[in-house]
């Protein structure tokens, strides 16, 4: 089999760069994108801000200490997902094998595209130029024989880089590379490997597979292969992605709350978001799960199986309220989540009761308005005075078309 050619494309400081493009006054300025106003951290910072030492995950206080002139912009998830979808469309002009890794990262398998476009270098520059000319954004591209190395390569030159790791260079690149640089080796695994005397990828690749397996179980062998730069994982396009088995949303609240009425209002929001997604997927669910996180980060979930599968926001809301009312809350709550599972297809059956028919028609009409004008354009009156509706987090399940494969139990 011929050598695969995998690209990893990583948009540079994506949220901040999109904000700078949409507001010319921000261009060339140190800009940080932040979440909600009271419990906020830096989601991402422009390269101008990074040069002052502003980093993702910093608190506002820390960031302002590093860069007093830092300009803060509230995250605009609708804008980012819209721009991301345009970028992914550009990728698809060069190969159907596009795996959306996150809102600002994707893997492309361009092995079969060379005959049409000439060279992998040309494909990379075509993508970079089209994104830059059309959207004013830059990206870093890594090209390698597999996903692991392509991701590593894209990290090597930022911003606006193009880095190749050719098969004959893999050993040299990895020999001294710290293991934590590899995608998939987190802080915890890194510490455990350090305890075995493994610090570089070269050491990891030479380490005894049996010892690694004994220490890490089945992933031990995989770790050794990672150290050698071996990764057989395929680029999986959207239509072949693993199926979604649940539909859920959660939100960290602006401040901890402990009164039922406030919690109920957030549950109504979450139920609306879950219901909207369930209807877009065309599914009903039999199990509703409520997740709470206390102020001290203790997190727990309770679920309730429904008599009939449900999918309307109001039904999900009532079910989550029933769960809430069965609990005695010991502390104020900082996070709430609602999930629908045990999914099944929603039959478009004719409802006999006029009341049920009216409800369904109303629900569909509301969905159409919100599809056209954005989430929460039309909502329950009780949500009108809730500020900053929505979870403010782009779900890892986000995909350009907004719909993933759904598994039915």
């Amino acid at each position, binding site marked *: 089999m011929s050598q695969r050619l995998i690209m990893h494309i990583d948009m540079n400081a994506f949220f901040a760069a999109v904000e700078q493009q949409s507001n010319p006054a921000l261009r060339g300025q140190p800009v940080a994108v932040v979440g909600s106003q009271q419990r906020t951290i830096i989601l991402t910072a422009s390269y101008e801000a990074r040069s002052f030492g502003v980093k993702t995950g910093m608190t506002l206080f820390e960031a302002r200490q590093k860069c007093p002139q830092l300009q803060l912009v509230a995250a605009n998830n609708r804008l980012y997902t819209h721009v991301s979808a345009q970028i992914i469309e550009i990728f698809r002009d060069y190969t159907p094998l596009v795996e959306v890794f996150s809102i600002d990262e994707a893997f492309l398998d361009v092995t079969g595209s060379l005959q049409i476009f000439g060279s992998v*270098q040309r494909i990379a*520059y075509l993508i*970079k130029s089209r994104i830059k000319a059309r959207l004013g954004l830059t990206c870093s591209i890594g090209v390698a024989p597999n996903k692991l190395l392509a991701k590593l390569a894209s990290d090597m030159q930022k911003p606006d880089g193009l880095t190749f790791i050719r098969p004959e260079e893999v050993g040299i690149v990895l020999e001294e590379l710290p293991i934590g640089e590899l995608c998939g080796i987190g802080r915890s695994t890194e510490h455990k490997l350090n305890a075995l005397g493994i610090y570089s990828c070269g050491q990891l690749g030479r380490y005894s597979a049996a010892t690694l397996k004994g220490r890490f179980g089945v992933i031990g062998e995989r770790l050794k292969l990672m150290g050698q730069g071996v990764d057989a994982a395929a680029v999986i396009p959207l239509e072949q992605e693993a199926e979604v088995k649940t539909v859920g949303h959660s939100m960290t609240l602006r401040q901890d709350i402990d009164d039922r009425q406030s919690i109920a209002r957030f549950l109504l929001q979450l139920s609306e978001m879950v219901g909207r997604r369930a209807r877009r997927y065309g599914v009903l669910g039999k199990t509703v799960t409520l997740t709470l996180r206390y102020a001290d980060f203790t997190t727990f979930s309770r679920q309730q199986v429904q008599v009939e599968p449900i999918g309307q926001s109001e039904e999900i809301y009532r079910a989550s309220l029933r769960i809430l009312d069965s609990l005695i809350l010991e502390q104020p709550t900082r996070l709430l989540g609602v999930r629908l599972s045990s999914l099944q297809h929603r039959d478009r059956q004719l409802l006999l009761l006029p009341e049920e028919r009216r409800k369904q028609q109303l629900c569909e009409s509301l969905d159409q308005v919100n599809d056209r004008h954005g989430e929460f354009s039309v909502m329950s009156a009780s949500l009108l005075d809730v500020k900053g509706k929505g979870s403010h987090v782009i779900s890892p399940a986000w995909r350009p078309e907004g719909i993933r494969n759904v598994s039915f139990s």
Partner: protein
Amino acid sequence: MPETKDGLRVGVIHGPGNAIKPVWFDLNRRKHSIREITNCWRERRGDTALLHFHVVDEGALYELIYNLTSGCWLLEQIESL
């Protein structure tokens, strides 16, 4: 100002050193001012060395290719903006 057989003319600033920077091109008697060079790179095909430029005018993104051996330019429109 090298000219291709298709009548493409490209205005270029040479230097400093060996650098080449296209600043306009004339195609079918229409002059296009280059607003931005988004990317450029060198490619070798056999004995031939090619310089690729992705350039933007007011309306579109183009690929200009300069053949260092023959001194000819080729042009391809990539997309309208």
